[in-house]
């Protein structure tokens, strides 16, 4: 088996990046960015999630391409769930 083995250095680096992201998101929450507060918070969360998926969950090194297809499918259907629901609920108050 040719399993990819990441170095401890890489794991600790990702760990530090995740901690920095947590600090940054708490800091950003107290800065008035107008409507961008939510966008910034969710962007930081998404960057953290991508780091976890790629490096902790080894998707970056997955030789099985089906794994990537499954992840993209999950994100796509989650997008459909959220976007189509909001297209309904988000516009009900419009007159």
């Amino acid at each position: 088996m040719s399993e990819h083995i990441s170095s401890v250095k890489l794991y600790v680096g990702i760990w530090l990046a995740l901690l920095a992201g947590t600090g940054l998101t708490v800091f950003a929450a107290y800065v008035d960015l107008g409507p961008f507060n939510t966008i910034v918070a969710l962007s930081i969360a998404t960057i953290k999630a991508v780091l976890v998926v790629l490096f902790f969950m080894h998707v970056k090194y997955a030789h099985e391409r089906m794994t990537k297809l499954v992840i993209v499918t999950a994100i796509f259907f989650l997008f459909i769930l959220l976007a189509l629901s909001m297209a309904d609920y988000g516009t009900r108050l419009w007159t």
Partner: protein
Amino acid sequence: MHTSPVAAAHPEAHDNPALLHHFATAEQQKDAASFGMWLFLVTEVMFFGGMFCAYLVYRYWYFGDFGAASQSLDIRLGALNTVVLICSSLTVALAVRCAQIGKQKSIVIYLLLTIVLGLAFLGVKAVEYKSKFDENHIPGQAGFHLAGHIPSHPDIPVNQAHAQVYFSLYFAMTGMHALHMIIGVGLFAFLTYKAWQGRYTSDYYTPVENAGLYWHFVDIVWIYLFPLLYLIDRHK
């Protein structure tokens, strides 16, 4: 240890005792197990997705009330738990790495560390829940009351019904997340026992890896829950 009949009959073709007879190679077996785990995680994405969708709808409808309710949470405990969970993800990743390189003692140590961090998370969560009960911030309770006003609108008091929707979502989402943590801690307790017995080698460590995938997923859910539940409208 499990030895398949085929492996017993053909030792030259199957020198890995963990290889089941219906797989051609250990790599194929591992890929199948890993793929199955990812499919399970997709169902989990959709499961939590439903709750995130409900959150999104009500955050949009009851915008200010959600801001006021969010500010009643303790941001320090939320941030502490985020750090605890990120540390536990690191220890799991290192446990899987030790399995890959065959350091059997280190697997046990890192899994035990993960269990300790998982229990620490649940302990902090219990403290938070306790304070919600003390403050009468339990949705559906007759005495429910959230004092204060909508952020940046001192003239508009909090709508109690809308605030209860926030706390319903808070308890549903963090409660389901905590249940996943409890299940994860149970899984790791089992894996620690097996690892201590020397069950996992660099040839066979699929259960450790798949439990790791599950734990990282639970971590990702919290990565989104933290800003959505604790950090909204803090600047106002």
